[in-house]
């Protein structure tokens, strides 16, 4: 049973006043691949290093399995870590790098050799076992770093942005390999990345950090469809969710159009006071027919999908929106075009928390808002 539990864990670096990781509560299940994601400086590495024992705790505790490891030395924690810059031992050969931890543990030479060979075979490193790290390519070094971890069967694997130094193509490929490897070994893994695509594709669950504070920890699907707050909504998804501040006017308006919410949203809206932000993902914004006019700024045609970047006048200021369309799409930059919302729409309260998710439609500007909301079964 090697679950991991952060309990109110806090770390404040010397010479700083704000905690780098602030009262983190996180439960990681046995065999789970949990991804810690967040922008640069959000405390992901710090959280991982706390689990590794490389940073002391200033508050709270950390458990690995049934054991409180808060005051246990790194070497006694039974963890393996993959570092962002790999941290290979430069004077040792690939084989010795991979066998290093086993040697420290007093594993006999013969067994060490077979286990290193076995790991090298899995990672396609067999031809390089006698080389020094500096004679390897970036991708090979990355695999040695992985190999150093997998020759061991530790309680937990820790990986700090292990793919960030690879080129884009290799990164995607290695991503899959890491997921498969983790599934096969079934070892509890904490994986840190700043790349939300990596997080969403790899994690069984994803924990989103911002300024050292945990925002939400959920399955990728739930993070995407039910973000707990504005930060998560904006951070997860690419291109990012359209977030439109609509102030405290009722009815809600986007540009010159009224936003009409389906029933549950409408009821919830009545409960909220203060400024509101409306959020809808690019795929929920349809370009073509629609009551609201916007200008096309740029069109990104990726072949499988088209991102249309739009601008319109909203509350006296220019507002940028993104729509994701299926090809073919033949609008040109500069064209004026109609907009309609066709999917999930989220309402966020003044404090950033999500109040309700519902569906919405845009009503033509001329229609008086009160009348429209009564006579409206008009979702496409």
């Amino acid at each position, binding site marked *: 049973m090697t679950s991991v539990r952060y309990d109110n864990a806090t770390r404040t670096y010397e010479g700083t006043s704000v905690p780098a990781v602030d009262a983190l509560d996180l439960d990681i299940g046995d065999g789970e691949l949990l991804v810690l994601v967040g922008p640069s400086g959000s405390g992901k590495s710090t959280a991982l290093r706390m689990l590794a024992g*490389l940073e002391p705790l200033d508050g709270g505790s950390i458990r690995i399995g049934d054991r409180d490891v808060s005051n246990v030395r*790194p070497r006694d924690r039974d963890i393996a*870590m993959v570092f962002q810059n790999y*941290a290979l*031992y430069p004077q040792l050969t690939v084989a010795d790098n991979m066998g290093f931890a086993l040697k420290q543990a007093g594993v006999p030479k013969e067994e060490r050799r077979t286990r290193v060979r076995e790991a090298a075979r899995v990672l396609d490193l067999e031809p390089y076992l006698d080389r020094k790290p500096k004679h390897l390519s970036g991708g090979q070094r990355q695999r040695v770093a992985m190999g150093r971890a997998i020759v061991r069967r530790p309680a937990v694997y820790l990986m700090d942005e292990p793919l960030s130094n690879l080129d884009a193509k290799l990164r995607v490929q290695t991503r899959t390999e890491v997921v498969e490897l983790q599934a096969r070994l079934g070892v509890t893994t904490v994986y840190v990345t700043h790349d939300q695509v990596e997080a969403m594709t790899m994690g069984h669950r994803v924990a989103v950090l911002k300024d050292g504070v945990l925002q939400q920890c959920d399955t990728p699907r739930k993070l995407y469809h039910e973000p707990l707050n504005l930060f998560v909504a904006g951070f997860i998804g690419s291109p990012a969710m359209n977030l439109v501040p609509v102030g405290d006017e009722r009815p809600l308006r986007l540009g010159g159009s009224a936003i009409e919410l389906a029933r549950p949203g409408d009821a919830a809206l009545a409960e909220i006071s203060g400024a509101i932000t409306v959020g809808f993902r690019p795929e929920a914004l349809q370009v073509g027919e629609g009551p609201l006019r916007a200008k096309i700024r740029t069109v990104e045609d990726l072949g499988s999908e088209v991102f249309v970047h739009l601008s319109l006048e909203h509350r006296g200021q220019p507002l940028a929106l993104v729509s994701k369309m299926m090809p073919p799409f033949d609008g040109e930059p500069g064209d004026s075009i109609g907009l309609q919302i066709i999917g999930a729409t989220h309402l966020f309260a003044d404090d950033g928390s999500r109040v309700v998710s519902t569906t919405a439609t845009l009503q033509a500007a001329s229609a008086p808002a009160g009348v429209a909301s009564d006579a409206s079964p008009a979702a496409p």
Partner: protein
Amino acid sequence: MNTTLGTRIAPRPLGLSESWRRRLPLLPALVFTILLTQVPFVMSIWYSLTDWKVVPPTPRQFVGLGNYGKLVSDHFFRQAAWTSIELTVVPVLGSILLGTAFALLLDRKFFGQGLVRTLLITPFLLMPVVVGLIWKNQMFHGLYGVINWVIEKLGGTPVEFISRYPTWAIAATLIWQWTPFMMLIILAGLQSQPGDVLEAAKVDGATPFGIFRQLTLGHLRPYMELGILLGTVYLIQVYDQVAVMTGGGPGSTNLPYFVFERSIGGGWDFGRASSYSIVVVIASIIIATVALRVLSGLLKGEEIA
């Protein structure tokens, strides 16, 4: 040669005149240096091939390699050469060991770090003659030396270090003076070791001593080699401490002091004395060549990493 140098400095090959124009300002200094160092050297070589006694004055005579032939059978020369080796190897090894120990102690954050580091470096900043005098009079002296004072306080009998163990006394002084130099080199090596590698080793289960033995020592090797070679090149030529502390007293005459004794120090046999100094120079050149190779290897290694 000109073109390779030119292309390395600028992307386009420079004309010969251009490259010479660039070097012209350096020329006076270069000529001066060559005159100052190479002319005496060449003259020494010439002297070493002659039989030239000043007292009593005899005409200088070319004897070819005769002086070198006599070296082999000269008991005093062999003794001096052996002392030179002792006074080089012992201080170099002693100071590299102590320097490494101090560097390991200094390679962490503690209160008053800067002050301690500066104090530890001071022996290296003293003039060799001053070092010799301090140790001879303040430390080793039989009557009022600090060491004997401590020995007496502990109930022992005082030892006349300099007359009983002249070579070891000089070696101890040299170790004291050279430890800071080695410490600085090793400290630079320690601080260039990547932190994440050490952290990886910790996570991989290595003990602090295991990390030092399996990783740090290997990382420090080129730095130690550099320290050893630079120290050797310098220490093989040590003269001041010998002259000040023992005056070449029982068994502590090394080659440089022997050269002095055989020439202006009273021997007045410039031909043979010159041949000794040439031997020292050749030994130094061999060591320095190796040192430079190590140094360039070190720089290249840093580039790759």
